């Protein structure tokens, strides 16, 4: 599914990233946020070694997981769990070609937001 304002996993993810990137994210709309590159989101520096990017991806995956479960009350989908969700997020956040929209699909696949039917 593409980046969708009616998808609570997508809006929860955008709210997390937007909050984390304040004040730079001020005025950026949900729709435009979907095009943000993940290397920007995890704050990877140009020229960084792969292990540096991987550490940042790991840290950010953990932060997203904490926000979704701790602030939005999200649970894991029945076929997922914390380990699988974090592994998927880490992998996606390490790939500089991905956008937040790509990450949104993963979040949707691994997390069940409040009110979302299983």
């Amino acid at each position, binding site marked *: 599914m593409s980046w969708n*304002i*009616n998808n*609570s996993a997508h*809006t*929860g993810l*955008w*709210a997390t990233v*937007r*909050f984390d*990137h*304040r*004040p*730079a*994210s001020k*005025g*950026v*709309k*949900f729709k435009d946020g979907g*095009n*943000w*590159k993940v290397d*920007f*989101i995890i*704050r*990877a*520096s*140009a*020229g*960084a*070694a*792969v*292990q*540096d990017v*991987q*550490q*940042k991806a*790991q*840290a950010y995956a*953990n*932060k997203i997981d*904490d*926000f979704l*479960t*701790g*602030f*939005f*009350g999200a649970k894991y989908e029945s076929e997922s769990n*914390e*380990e699988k969700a974090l*592994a*998927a997020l*880490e*992998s996606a956040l*390490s*790939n*500089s*070609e991905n956008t937040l929209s790509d990450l949104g699909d993963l979040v949707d696949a691994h997390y069940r*937001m*409040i*009110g979302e039917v299983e």
Partner: protein
Amino acid sequence: MLSQLMFRLNFILKLLLFFPVFISTVNAQVNEVQKDVIKSIAMPDEYCKKLKIELTVCKVIYEAGLKKIIGDGSNEEIRVQLEENLKAVILQPDYLNKNLLESAFVASKIEGSPLTLEFAQLDRKDADNVLGLKYSLDYSIKKGYIDSSGDWDKRWGFKLLSSGTITQNSEENPRNFIDLKVTAFGSISTEIPTQGEAFFARAMILTNAVNINKQAAIDELDAMFENALSPLGGYQWYTFGVDLGLEADQEFKAKQNKISGFVYGQYESWTKSSFIGAMGIVPSIRIGVDSIDPNKETPRALAGDNSSYYRISGEASLWVPLGRFNDQPLVLTFNYRTYDELSPSDITKNAKFDNYRLRTYALRGPYGLYVSYSSGQLPMNFQSEQLIELGLKLHL
């Protein structure tokens, strides 16, 4: 899907086969006036848009066909030019990433896998750019979590990691450096406290489709998050571990075994009263002590010293938000990588293989880099003029 890929390939082949036959038939029958008419009505964009093949490829074939029809060059000249133009269009990172790596068939094979691939144009000093395939592998062998009370998440794991850039000719590779290792690590990070049902319900309302872009809802949500996070002060992430692996050139001729102990830390302040919190600056640092056992093909060994040695490796990164540019966030990033041999021999020092530094400054936004500047060198470079993306580079 494979069938789609085959369809595209078949279509391109048919076009290539069809054009010479069609052209030679037409060519025999057109005169100068007709050639001018054909030229004037040629509309490659319109024609190519109707076909299900890449526009740039179609246009190259179309242009070759048109040249043949109007007799602009001999068969051999047109064939050579067609070949060169097709190469120029197809052997481009954007084309290959879009049509090969992002094709349904390849994407389905690597999606969700620990492997990432990307074609890139590699800059070389005083030489033509070369096409390279960048890869990285991040495979989690085993990982676990440690239940504990307090403000920290704790976890451990084992990973297989590899990264590098491969070119057709290794001697032309300005990033001729492959890193392959198994890492055992432990991590601790700030634990964000779980809120209650009322908080969840309000957060869901403030982020629904109606409210997600409304400033009042954003302000209320930010205040809720800030209130929940204020006792923490910031987000901290620390990792420590041991790497076992090797560094090599892409042909694995020159290689060195490596055992490394490392620590990594990243800190993000959530307190506006601190300087880095108010500025949004996020620093990170990694320090390692490496035991290196090189083979006789490494640059250092070729210079006359193939003994094992210890080195300190380090990397520091800085993320500095600068405000907004073109109505988008603008950030300055700085990265500094260093490799220093401990107690190097005179041979190593004289050959300047005892330390390596690489500094990269960049201005970027959420959609990519605007400009970057790099200077320095990484280990395992054989030709001093082939340095990694040196100098000022505009990313337009």
